[in-house]
């Protein structure tokens, strides 16, 4: 660049040569657009406002964990913008209009201002304002009374989505553990636990990080609406397609995601298993499967006894000595001309091992038994899924099925996305096992761009949190939420409290709208069966109306916390941009105050003497120190500077599920935090990917291998045979783009974008039959409940489906509850083991039948 020449020393004197005149007069005219004016006297401020920008993490239950900058003027949040500071540029920027309009909630009309106490009837009378001391003393006193009468395990605790708040939500876990209360795990409560994961891979759930989609050459999306539910990452799907990947969407409805696909395949509701198994049949028949992969990483070579359907154990076979194995493992048997005791800790079977065939096995007791390999049984079982049969069950064209099977079988990298709306069905586990089979058959596991992912329940724990969440490793009580609704079952492995749940303490959730059969909770609190309910929230939700005590908490702009979800690979902080508004308090403070009132000894567990944000920093330091390899070397100071990528063993610290298993031949499963490995490894005792489940329940139900079972037969029709004729519509409660579940239900901007009205989407032919037009007020109902909304007639919706966008607070539904229609079905295979949030009965929201009528039509 040219240099400006300056002669400072003599400049001044030289400049006198030219007599300047004050010629500015000519410029006095209009000032133009860009000029400054003196502030009006009335507006004058002694001090200029204090302006600052604070980097925090938007942390609602979408778990998108988008970095945002809060623009703050004199301690008031004025604007929120995307931080766009991720080192990996493909993640910049991220965010959505919901997060960027959080001011509407932080300062909205529903914002809680003080603690509240219900002195009348919950859900009927108004709560009364109180001081913190009154509310906390009263809560502690009621809890102590209930614990004295029924035991502390009769107090239930629910906190949503731990991964978005390791400190404050962890504090509630910490107190519940100390006090011996029962915890309801969000994963199974929310229906976020895709049970095929523990059954097949021994893990809670897994997913490719979104940037890995760019490495896929084929993306098959089964009932996942990424364009609505993964807004900040949806571009990766389009980017992947634009750079040449084929994107195929299977869905009963033409979703926004289907609109972005290369190919949309409409299929009947919950018929994904039959489609997947039809695809697998073609792949196996045409030899498109990866034999070497199957021999090394799956249970396909293992022998299964023909007499009892159980896998043959090494200890049963004459002449075989099983290797020493830990309790959670089992040595099974494979065959390559002679019998081999398979070491479940090693993935090293010889290449000549049989994948197919039947042999006679001499047993130690002198008898003989016939046995077939798992793969042999699988091939036989796949025989029924002919293209014609698949077409019959799913509505899919047989030629398309064969073509797509060949495409998937020959794809370089295949990624399958299995949507939550799809696995939250009674047979969601079978569908997941069938879909995973496509990936496994073709060796599309554990490498870049390949795998099967479930992008819901994206709040699994990413680091060891035990030191903070579980003080001194004390035992914890866990009760899956479905038992709270159902009562105990015969086969349950979790421990049901003798008197049931008599008190509920929850935070960061709105169960009186959002949970399965929300109306049951309302009835129980009003009948007194549920004797006491206390809630922490920052807004006056429906659940607050049904609570005895409301403890006002804060948003992610008002406190310090640690966030890491699986949605993207970064560890981040929530940092206080503004002080808590009104008389609200950070939850850690509330919990510490409650702990000390419950038992003065407990205060010491919550950093007494530290102000809430300082205490939170101490908890973060503790978790970083003891968090294990994922946070190795990461410090609080680094996080204050910006997001830091979590560590993994994959090059570039990428998140690729089972990379270590496949690349380093390590036994399955990898650890699912926070559970210990031995707890989850028992799910896949062979140390391999298991498609053959021989626990008795699986054998009794005929589900030892993935099979297709049609919806409603074992659920709605079994519950009430009349439902078959009476209710022809599937009731699907999908996520809308305007809410994060029930958060933002009252966001004025969001409501403006959807006429402020809850809607149900119907197929035009169905609507015509019922005399319903777009805009008509309608009721969706079944024997259990009804919901009030407005119809949208949409040719993209499949036949006999009523789609309701979930998350609306009751007050927008004329007091009805859209979850009143659902039912807490428990599938017996979900009770084979119990590890909290890992193998537990999962809520099947969409396994629900209903009918639709115009308001005013005959009931």
């Amino acid at each position, binding site marked *: 660049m040219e240099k*400006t020449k300056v002669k400072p020393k003599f400049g001044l004197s030289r400049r*006198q040569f030219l007599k300047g005149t004050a010629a500015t007069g000519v410029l006095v*005219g209009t000032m133009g*657009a860009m000029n400054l004016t003196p502030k009006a006297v009335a507006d004058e401020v002694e001090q200029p406002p204090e302006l600052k920008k604070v980097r925090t993490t938007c942390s609602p239950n979408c778990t998108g964990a988008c970095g945002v900058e809060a623009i703050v003027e004199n301690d008031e949040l004025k604007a929120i913008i995307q931080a766009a500071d991720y080192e990996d540029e493909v993640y910049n920027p991220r965010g959505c209009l919901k997060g960027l309009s959080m001011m509407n909630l932080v300062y909205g009309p529903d914002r809680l201002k003080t603690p509240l106490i219900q002195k009348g009837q919950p859900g009927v009378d108004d709560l009364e304002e109180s001081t913190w001391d009154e509310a906390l003393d009263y809560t502690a006193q009621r809890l102590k009374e209930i614990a004295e009468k029924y035991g502390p395990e009769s107090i239930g605790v629910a906190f949503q989505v731990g991964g978005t708040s390791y400190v404050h939500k962890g504090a509630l876990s910490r107190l519940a553990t100390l006090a011996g209360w029962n915890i309801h795990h969000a994963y199974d409560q929310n229906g976020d636990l895709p049970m095929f994961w523990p059954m097949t891979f021994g893990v809670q759930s897994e997913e490719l990080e979104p940037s890995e989609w760019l490495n896929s050459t084929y993306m098959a999306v089964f009932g996942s609406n990424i364009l609505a539910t993964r807004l900040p990452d949806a571009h990766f799907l389009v980017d992947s397609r634009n750079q040449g990947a084929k994107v195929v969407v299977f869905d009963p409805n033409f979703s926004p995601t289907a609109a972005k696909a290369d190919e949309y395949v409409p299929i009947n509701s919950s018929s994904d298993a039959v489609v997947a198994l039809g695809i697998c049949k073609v792949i196996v028949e045409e030899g498109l499967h990866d034999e070497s992969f199957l021999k090394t990483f799956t249970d396909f070579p293992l022998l299964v006894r023909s007499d009892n359907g159980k896998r043959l154990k090494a200890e049963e076979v004459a002449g075989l000595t099983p290797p020493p194995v830990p309790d959670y493992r089992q040595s099974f048997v494979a065959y390559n001309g002679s019998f081999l005791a398979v070491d479940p800790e090693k993935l090293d079977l010889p290449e000549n091992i049989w994948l197919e065939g039947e042999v006679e096995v001499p047993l130690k007791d002198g008898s003989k038994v016939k046995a077939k390999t798992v793969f042999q049984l699988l091939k036989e079982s796949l025989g029924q899924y002919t293209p014609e049969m698949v077409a019959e069950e799913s509505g899919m064209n047989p030629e398309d099925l064969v073509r797509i099977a060949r495409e998937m079988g020959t794809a370089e990298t295949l990624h399958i996305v299995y949507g939550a709306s799809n696995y939250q069905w009674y047979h969601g586990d079978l569908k997941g096992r069938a879909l995973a089979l496509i990936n496994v058959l073709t060796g599309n596991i554990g490498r870049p761009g390949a795998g099967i992912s479930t992008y819901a329940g994206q709040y699994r724990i990413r680091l060891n949190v035990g030191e903070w969440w579980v003080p001194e490793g004390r035992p914890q009580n866990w009760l899956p939420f479905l038992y709270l609704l159902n009562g105990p079952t015969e086969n349950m492995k979790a421990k049901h409290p003798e008197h049931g749940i008599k008190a509920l303490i929850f935070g960061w959730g709105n169960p009186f709208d959002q949970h399965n059969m929300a109306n049951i909770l309302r009835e129980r609190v009003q009948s007194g069966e549920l004797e006491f309910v206390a809630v922490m929230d920052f807004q006056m939700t429906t659940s607050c109306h049904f609570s005895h005590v409301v403890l006002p908490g804060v948003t992610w702009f008002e406190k310090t916390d640690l966030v890491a979800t699986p949605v993207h690979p970064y560890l981040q902080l929530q940092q206080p941009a503004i002080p808590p508004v009104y008389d609200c308090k950070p939850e850690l403070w509330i919990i510490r105050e409650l702990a000390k009132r419950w038992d003065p000894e407990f205060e010491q567990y919550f950093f007494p003497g530290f102000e809430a944000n300082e205490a939170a920093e101490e908890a973060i330091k503790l978790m970083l120190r003891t968090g294990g390899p994922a946070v190795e070397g990461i410090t609080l100071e680094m996080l204050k500077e910006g997001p830091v990528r979590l560590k993994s063993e994959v090059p570039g610290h990428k998140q690729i599920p089972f990379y270590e298993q496949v690349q380093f031949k390590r036994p399955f499963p990898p650890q699912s935090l926070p559970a210990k490995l031995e707890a989850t490894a028992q799910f896949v005792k062979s140390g391999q990917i298991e498609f053959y489940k021989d626990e008795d329940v699986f054998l009794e139900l005929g589900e030892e291998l993935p099979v297709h079972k049609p919806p409603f037969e074992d659920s709605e029709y079994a519950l009430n045979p009349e439902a078959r004729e009476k209710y022809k519509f599937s009731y699907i409660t999908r996520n809308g783009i305007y809410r994060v579940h029930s958060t933002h239900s009252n966001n004025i901007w969001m409501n403006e974008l959807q006429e402020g009205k809850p809607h149900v989407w119907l197929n035009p032919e169905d609507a015509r039959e019922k005399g319903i037009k777009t805009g008509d007020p309608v009721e969706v109902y079944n024997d259990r409940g009804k919901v009030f909304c407005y119809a949208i007639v949409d040719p993209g919706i499949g036949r006999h489906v009523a789609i309701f966008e979930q998350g609306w607070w009751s007050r927008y539904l004329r007091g009805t509850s859209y979850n009143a229609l659902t039912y807490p079905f428990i599938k017996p295979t979900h009770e084979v083991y119990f590890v909290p949030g890992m193998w537990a009965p999962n809520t099947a929201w969409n396994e629900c039948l209903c009918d639709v009528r115009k308001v005013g039509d005959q009931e």
Partner: protein
Amino acid sequence: MSEKQDAIAIILANRSYLYRLLQRVFGTDPQLEILETAVSEHTRESLQLILQEDEHLFDKHFETLDNLKESLATDSEGTLDKLKGEYTYLFIGPDKLPAPPWESVYLSKERILFQENTLNVRRVYLEYNFLPSNYPHEADDHLGLELDFMAHLSKLAQEHFENGQTEELKKVLQDQKKFLDEHLLMWIDEFANDIQKSKTHYFYPSMADLTKHVLKIDNVIIDELLGAI
């Protein structure tokens, strides 16, 4: 008044004039009287005084101004129209701006508006009780606004000098220097450089380059003034 005092008065008057002129040039769409002032002999002399132009470094820019003067004389309406097009294309849109006229674009990684720098600039304006006239609809760090701030303070410096308020004069000059160091000079290079890439236009790229040099030299002049008073 001594010769030195005279010299100071002249310098103060001319920098005041130039800042006001440049604010008008960048702060609003082109208007005939501003253009006529920009191409006037007075502006030429003022620029030569401030830039100590004796080495023909800026000949091409003066040539631009001469050409503009000529075309204004022959076809004022057409010329004005053309420059309005140039201004809109460069500073308003609708296409991607070749050199967006806001500080935060150059000083933030994401190249976006309304960043921390914007707030910092606003804070400085508020020290002198100024706010952008269309606050809060325009980012405070627009080139036109930053130049307006310098113009106001230059005028203030003149007044303090005339009233013999030396301490006040020093304070204003120090604040101007600080504002140059912390804001205008942080991005004017890149702005002036980027705008040269817009090859189809001629007036504003030239003015941007002149502005760059005026700002840099004024930074030195302020030191001289502070040493002299």
